[in-house]
């Protein structure tokens, strides 16, 4: 009865004091683990005892580790995926500071490639976490050759693609707005460019990607389904470098180097599409003057003030611009800024203070002979985070902190000039304050059992000034309340327990169990299949209760063949409360009474996810399969019966293979197959005023056709020894030209309007791509 015992312990630890350390003198070895060539800190690198691999530590998000051991002499084994494993003899007689550098390993010399990540799934107590290896992303073939983090995570089990031409993703039956997307701790409100064809994350700027599908640690909160935690590169601390690429639709450039050698570095990456340059070839002047492009700019700098203090400043700025001269213009984008202060208090205490600003806005300009107005909307936040890590013993690490988040929404503003036949309008701004405190403990009570448990307490306050309406069941206003600035219009308090537990059965297999409760106070409203920059954001209010999710998951992890293969199976059940749907033909744009358009219900999602990964050798890759169900129930929809969520896909399969053909050539292929989305199709028709209308009976009672696609890619790299390295990436998207239905719609036949027909629109046929990359 391991579980019972554990829950008692869990209780004791929460109320009791930290157990004192006993007898034997213990010392701590601590420091940072870095890449030897660039000085880049390594996240999640492992440091273990050679004699007893069960004893060890991993670096945190800033590359810091702390390992407390009885005095004595040891051999420490330091390893990280893609790096040569290092063995360090240590005589531990006092607290020791030791910064360690690892050399990256050649892919073909598989012996030296670390297994630290390879057995990570089996050994780590964290459940539901997947790390994306940035080296793998390089080889996974993608649309137009633009390697893309968001597209790659969609190949993992339990993560569904938002569909062709969408960066949106759905985790374990959740909605698109239930994913918390963080870039250097800053919330990214809209992660797509060009309505979703590309994501806002330029892979060149990214060091580490973590995706939590469940059992999220207590420091994360605010979204139901997942946490995607993306860390930007720090920049080369030792020498200047540049790399970039020229692709079919975009060019990229990255420059990095030391500010002061070994103390600080910077990195700047930029990307811009140039599809619009072709517009210049048009003979039509207004086409020539049209705009259609996006760009991203990532910049980061860090500076080590002294042995204990390091500052990081990072920012992201990206924008999409489109416009047709003389008619309309449309631009949108995110801007984020993060300032962080790392402090190593002593060998066992680490703290991080973060101040974040994040903003998303859009502008629409309409001009014509007699119309001239601007529509603007914005959402932004200021976020202050304080996080402490206490490495108590090599079996126990505490983490706690608080988080103060101020969020403001300007839902819609229309500025029109006097001559225009449109009225200026300004919907009231909304502001909310979320104060959260958390405590979490990673603990290894026995050599087999390890556990991360924690609590998050979040207090959400919707602030005045503003007019707040109450509605009846029909959506009519029954109550109007006016609050002054600073007054509390609504208040919610949620306690979110989190647990992730691992029981090591043998050296190469383990069982895990997790539970998490998450609350969400920010909601994105859309009644369309595609998510658009103009989707409206609302905060929880007197009408909109916080969304809540409870998820339990159980998993089995097994490595084979000396960690050459990693296999896992996870099953989960998730129950969601206060889910949002819409009244028929809901008006979600610039609507003062928008909350009258909402309906509230519950959801449930459950499934099994299988994952088999080959992580060593010339052939790498993975197979992932999920069998899942996601359903919703609303009193006013589908006669109150449960219906499948749109993203309910019974089967979802991805296969990814990368093969190192020769030192120069790497070939790869990706195959995806999934059940079609649940959709609403008509089950009859009728005429009104000579027009044929469709008769709908059941919500999401039909299925889109199954989706499948094969992409292939190949990369040629010049010799690694050269100072100036180049590579070519070739790709073929949708290699067998499958016409996957993007839309199925119904219409009257052109020749005979009495006959009705279904038609299909497929977005992408076979699309080749080529990219040239350089690095020096």
């Amino acid at each position, binding site marked *: 009865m391991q579980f019972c015992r554990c829950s008692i312990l869990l209780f004791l630890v929460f109320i009791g004091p930290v157990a004192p350390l006993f007898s034997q003198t213990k010392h701590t070895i601590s420091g940072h683990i870095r890449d030897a060539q660039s000085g880049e800190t390594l996240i999640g690198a492992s440091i273990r005892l050679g004699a007893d691999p069960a004893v060890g530590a991993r670096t945190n998000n800033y590359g810091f580790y702390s390992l407390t051991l009885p005095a004595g002499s040891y051999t420490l084994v330091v390893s990280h995926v893609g790096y040569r494993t290092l063995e360090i003899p240590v005589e531990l007689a006092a607290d020791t500071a030791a910064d360690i550098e690892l050399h990256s390993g050649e892919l073909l010399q598989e012996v030296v490639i670390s297994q630290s990540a390879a057995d990570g799934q089996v050994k780590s107590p964290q459940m539901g976490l997947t790390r994306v290896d940035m080296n793998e992303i390089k080889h996974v073939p993608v649309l137009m050759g633009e390697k893309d983090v968001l597209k790659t995570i969609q190949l993992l089990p339990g993560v569904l693609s938002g569909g062709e031409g969408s960066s949106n993703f759905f985790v374990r039956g959740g909605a698109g707005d239930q994913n918390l997307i963080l870039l250097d701790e800053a919330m990214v409100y809209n992660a797509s460019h060009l309505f979703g064809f590309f994501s806002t994350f330029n892979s060149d700027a990214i060091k580490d990607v973590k995706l939590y599908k469940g059992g999220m640690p207590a420091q994360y909160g605010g979204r139901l389904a997942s946490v995607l935690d993306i860390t930007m590169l720090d920049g080369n601390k030792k020498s200047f470098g540049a790399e970039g690429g020229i692709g079919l639709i975009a060019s990229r450039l990255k420059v990095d180097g030391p500010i002061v050698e070994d103390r600080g570095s910077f990195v700047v990456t930029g990307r811009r599409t140039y*599809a619009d340059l072709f517009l210049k070839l048009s003979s*039509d002047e207004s086409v020539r003057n049209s705009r259609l492009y996006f760009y991203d700019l990532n910049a980061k700098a860090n500076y080590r003030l002294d042995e204990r203090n390091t500052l990081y400043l990072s920012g992201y700025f990206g924008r999409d611009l489109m416009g047709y001269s003389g*008619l309309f213009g449309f631009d949108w984008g995110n801007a984020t800024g993060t300032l962080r202060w790392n402090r190593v208090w002593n060998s066992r205490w680490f703290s991080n203070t973060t101040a974040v600003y994040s903003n998303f806005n859009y502008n629409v300009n309409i001009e*014509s002979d007699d119309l001239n107005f601007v529509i603007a909307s914005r959402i932004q936040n200021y976020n202050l985070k304080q996080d402490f890590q206490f490495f108590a013993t090599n079996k126990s690490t505490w983490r706690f902190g608080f988080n103060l988040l101020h969020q403001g929404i300007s839902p819609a503003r229309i500025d029109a000039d006097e001559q225009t036949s449109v009225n200026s309008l300004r919907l009231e701004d909304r502001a909310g304050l979320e104060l959260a405190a958390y405590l979490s403990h990673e603990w290894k009570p026995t050599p087999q059992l390890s556990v991360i448990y924690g609590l998050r307490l979040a207090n959400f306050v919707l602030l005045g000034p503003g007019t707040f309406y109450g509605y009846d069941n029909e959506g009519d206003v029954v109550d109007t309340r006016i609050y002054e600035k600073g007054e509390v219009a609504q208040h919610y308090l949620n306690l979110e327990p989190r647990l992730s537990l691992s029981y090591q059965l043998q050296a190469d297999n383990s069982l895990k169990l997790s539970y998490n409760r998450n609350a969400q106070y920010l909601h994105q409203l859309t009644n369309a299949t595609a998510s658009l920059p103009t989707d409206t954001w609302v905060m929880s209010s007197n009408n909109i209760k916080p969304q809540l999710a409870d998820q339990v998951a159980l998993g089995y992890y097994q490595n084979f063949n000396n960690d050459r293969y990693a296999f896992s199976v996870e099953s989960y059940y998730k129950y969601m409360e206060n889910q949002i749907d819409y009244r028929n033909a809901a008006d979600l744009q610039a609507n003062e009474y928008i909350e009258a358009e909402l309906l509230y219900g519950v959801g449930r999602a459950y499934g099994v996810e299988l994952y088999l990964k080959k992580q060593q050798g010339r052939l790498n890759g993975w197979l992932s399969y999920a069998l899942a169900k996601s359903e919703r129930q609303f009193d006013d929809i589908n006669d109150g019966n449960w219906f499948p969520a749109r993203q309910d896909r019974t089967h979802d399969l991805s296969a990814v293979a990368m093969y190192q053909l020769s030192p120069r050539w790497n070939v790869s292929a990706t195959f995806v197959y999934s059940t079609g989305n649940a959709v*609403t199709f*008509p089950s009859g028709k009728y005429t009104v005023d*000579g027009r044929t209308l469709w008769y709908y009976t059941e919500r999401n009672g039909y299925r889109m056709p199954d989706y499948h696609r094969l992409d292939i890619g190949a990369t040629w790299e010049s010799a690694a020894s050269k100072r100036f390295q180049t590579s070519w990436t070739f790709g073929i998207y949708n290699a067998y030209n499958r016409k996957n239905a993007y839309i199925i*719609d119904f219409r009257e036949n052109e020749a005979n309007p009495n*006959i009705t027909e279904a038609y299909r*629109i497929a977005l992408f046929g076979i699309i080749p791509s080529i990219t040239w990359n350089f690095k020096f």
Partner: protein
Amino acid sequence: MKQAYLIILIAGFFSVSCEDVIDINLNDADPQLVIVGTVSNRSYEQRVTLSRTVAFDVSEPFDPVSGATVTVSDGRGQTFQFVERTPGVYVANFRGRERERYELSVQLEGQVYTAISTMPPLITADSIGTGVRTLFGEEQKFISIRYADPAGMPNYYRYLWRVNNGAMKMLYVTQDKFNDGRYVSEDLVDFDTDLVAGDSVVVRMQCIDKAAFDFWNAVQSTNPGTAAPANPPSMFGAGALGYFSAYAESEMPTEVQ
């Protein structure tokens, strides 16, 4: 916002999307009663049609319902009895009045279906003409009408037109959410019809009530990108689809310049 169209447009920009007609197996739902009733200020004959929904692949979409008792009563206590002229089409002779409240009652197989509609005051355009704009190198002509929207009250409009000898065709409905009290210029276009100089066009502008607007707005805002298409709200409650609209209409002829 026609998101899906926008995305297809973008994909079209990369010249990659394609379209074809496919076969889909759709269920045949139990037939449902459809009631469509109108009262106009311009006509001396008012009409109510009763039909049932049919399966998607049936080539005759109008399945008439006969033998109903149909009446409309106004706010002054007058009741107009409708007679079934052709199967499913019921008519009565009276002329609608602005600001009058009308109640439609349909009795069928022991069930009574009722709906109420109040005819809004007539708002007429004070000018009509041809406009031209250039979109992606192609000239597109449209009919432009101008009218003063009354301030301080919600107004709903429905536009129809007939081009040359074609059928009268509904274009769309609008509301004054963003231009209450303004002098409004409405550009009428129909993506299926290219206007050329010399075409004769008759425009009908109807002032409709909110319920009729909600009905048509639900129809026109359902597009291939709608996450959950549904039947437009019925004024008759559960058991019958359709709508009842008392509208004030004006008609304007013009010739495309």
